[in-house]
C-alpha cells in the first residue's frame, strides 16, 4: 500500500515536471518530432490536418489553435491545419459528435483523399466523455467515422496533441493506408 502511494507521488511529480517543461520548452515536449523520421513517406514529409468540431465545448479547439502560436509553433515540424478536407491527411475530430454534426463529419471524412486517418482528439471524441448518455450525441467519433487513434484529456494540452499526432503517424508508418470508409 505504501509502495503504491509512493509510486503515485513519484508519478505525479514526474507529470508535473513534464508539464512545466511543456510550456518552457515545447520542442522537448514534442520529443524531437523530426519530420523525416516520423512522417511516413507517403505523406512526403509533411501532414495536413482538417480539424472538425463535432459538438466540442471549444476547449479542444483552443488547444489546437495554441499549437500554431509562437510557443508551440507546430508548422516547423511539418504539421499544419488546413481549411479544406480535400487538402487533409488527418481528420482531427473533437467533441462527442452531436447528431446535428454527424453528417457534416462524415462528409468531411469522405472528402479527404487517401491515404488518410481519423484522430479522435479529447475524451468527448474518444467515447462521449461527460456527455455520454445524452439524447443528442452519438457518443464518440468512432460511431460515425473509422478512428485510427485517440488522444485522451479534457482537453488534451497542446503538447499532448503533438504527442498524439506523433503516435498516430508512427502507427501509420506501419500501415501506410487509412482504413476503408464506413
Amino acid at each position, binding site marked *: 500500500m505504501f509502495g503504491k502511494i509512493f509510486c503515485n507521488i513519484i508519478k505525479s511529480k514526474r507529470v508535473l515536471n513534464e*508539464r*512545466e517543461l511543456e*510550456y518552457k520548452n515545447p520542442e522537448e515536449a514534442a520529443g524531437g518530432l523530426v519530420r523525416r523520421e516520423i512522417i511516413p513517406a507517403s505523406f512526403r514529409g509533411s501532414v495536413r490536418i482538417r*480539424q*472538425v*468540431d*463535432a*459538438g*466540442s*465545448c*471549444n*476547449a*479542444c*479547439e*483552443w*488547444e*489546437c*489553435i*495554441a499549437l500554431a*502560436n*509562437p*510557443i508551440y509553433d507546430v508548422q516547423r515540424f511539418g504539421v499544419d*491545419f488546413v*481549411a*479544406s*478536407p480535400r487538402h487533409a491527411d488527418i481528420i482531427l475530430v473533437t*467533441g*462527442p459528435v*452531436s*447528431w*446535428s*454534426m*454527424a*453528417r*457534416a463529419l462524415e462528409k*468531411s471524412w469522405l472528402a479527404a483523399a487517401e491515404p488518410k486517418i481519423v484522430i479522435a482528439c479529447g475524451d*468527448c471524441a474518444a467515447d462521449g*466523455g*461527460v*456527455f455520454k*448518455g*445524452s*439524447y*443528442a*450525441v452519438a457518443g464518440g467519433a468512432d460511431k460515425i467515422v473509422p478512428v485510427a487513434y485517440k488522444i485522451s484529456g*479534457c*482537453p488534451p*494540452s497542446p503538447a499532448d496533441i503533438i504527442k498524439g499526432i506523433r503516435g498516430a503517424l508512427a502507427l501509420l508508418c506501419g500501415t501506410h493506408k487509412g482504413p476503408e470508409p464506413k
Partner: protein
Amino acid sequence: MTPRNIENYHRVQPGEFAARCAGIFHAGGKLRMMFAADERETDGRMNIYAVFSSIADHGSFDIITTAVEDEGGFRYQSITPRVPAAHWYEREMACMFGIVPEGHPDLRPLVLHGMYPEGVFPLRRDITAADVRSKVDLAKDDAYPYKTVEGEGVFEIPVGPVHAGIIEPGHFRFSAVGESIYFLDPRLFYTHKGVEKLFEQVGFERGIQIAERISGTSSFCHSTAYCLAVENMRGVEIPIRAKAVRTFLVELERLYNHIGDIGNLCAGTGFAAGYAGGAELKERLMALNHRLTGSRYLRGVNRLGGVSRDVLEDVESISAELSVVTDEFKAVMKFIMSSISHMERLEGPGFLSREAAVKLGATGIAARASGVNDDLRTAHPNLFYDRIIFEVHTRNRGDVLARMMLRADEAACSLAMLRSILRKAKPQKKELMAADAQQDARPADIGGGRQALGWVEGARGSIFYFVKAAADGKSPLRVKVRSASFCNWPLLPLAVLNDIVPDFPLINKSFNLSYSGCDM
C-alpha cells in the same frame, strides 16, 4: 441578507403574463432569462418563468411565473411582440417543451435540426433520453426554411457548418449585393448536446463537470454559477476564502479571454505580429491557470459548498507573475494600437445601436460597448464583489473598435482586482468548504421542490442558472442554463448589416460568441 431573499417569485394568471412582463421590460427591467419547467409530476402544471432584474429593489430579481394549460397542446400568448428580448427563449421553449407562443413572429425550429423526430419534446419529464435517441434519423434532410432576399444582383453565400479555420460549427446564409451584406440568417445549434436534460440525469454533484464543459473558455464561470444556484437552493453559505478563490478565478478567466480576444482581432485583419503578441501572452496566462489549478481551463476547482483547492496560497509568486503580465499587456496594447492599418479596419464595422442592444437583451461586452451600463458584478453583487472597489467600463461607439478598447479597459480592471483579492487573501482563514456542504448524504434536509438562481458575470457577459430540485430532493427537476452567447447571437445579423462580407470574421471575433455555450 442571503441570496435566497432576493428572488421574488410572482405567480400570475396566464392572461396577465404578457402584460406583466411587458410592463417590467418597458420600465427598464432587464429580461435575464425565460424558460419553462415541466412540473406536472409535482404540482400538475407546465410552468413558464421570466426572470427580470427588479427596478424598484436594486440587486433583486422579479420572477414572473405562470402555468400553461393543456388545451389539446400547450399554448400561451407570446410576449415577443412586446418584449423583443424574449424571442429566442420562446422559440427554444417551443422546441424543447412543445409550448407554442401564439403570435410569435418567427416560429421556425431553433434548437433541434431535421434529424430529430417531430412532436418529441426532449425536456418534458415523461420523455427519456432513450425515447429521443431511438427516434433520431440521420438520413433525414434538414429542411430549414432560410429567409431569402430576392431582387436584381442579390446572391446568397452559404458558409459552414464546417468553417475554414479551427472554430466551432454553425451555418451562415448571407444575402449579399456586391460585397455588402444585405441580410444574414444564421443557423446555429449544430453543437446541441442535450445538456439541460443531462443535468437531470446525472444528479447535482456530477452536474459540475457538465457545467464546466458547456463552453470551454467559460468553464469556471459556468461551474461557479451552477454551484451558486445549488448552494442558494440548499441555503449553504460558502466560507469567505472560497468566495475569494472563486472571484479570483472568475477574474483570471476574464483576463485570459479578453487578452486572447484582443490578439484574435489582429488575426481578423491579417496583422500577424499583433496576433502573435496576444497569443503568447494568453499562453502565459494558460500556464498560470495550469500551475494554480492543474487545469488550463480552471476545471476541477469548484465543488458544491466551496472549492477543492486553495489557489491563493502562494501570494508572492502569483503577484510576481501578474506584474509581468501587466507590463507585457501594456507593451502588446501599445504595439497593436500603433498599427494604423489595423486600427483603421476596426473603426466603423459591426455597429450595434444602444436601442437594439437594450431591446434584444444584449449582455456583457456587446452591451457595454454600445453604452449600456449593465454588469452583474455591480447590478447583483455576489461572491467577493461587494468587498472590492472597481468601476464598470462602458464605451458608446458600438463598433468593433469599441469592443476591443472595452476589453482592454476590463482586462486592466481585472488585473487590479486580482491584486486586490491577493492583498485581502493573506489574513483570511483557510477554510475552503462550507461545514454543511455534504448535503447529498442527507437528502431529507434539502427539501424537494426548492429552487434558486445562480449568476456570474463572465468574460462574454452574464451567465444564469436556475436549479429546481425534484420531489425527493436527490436530483434536479430542472436545470436551466442561460449563457451570455444565447443573448448575443441574435445581435450579430443586425451588427453586420451593410458591412462587407470580408469584415464578417472581424465582426464575429469582436463579439467572440460561443457556439457551444449557446447550443448546449
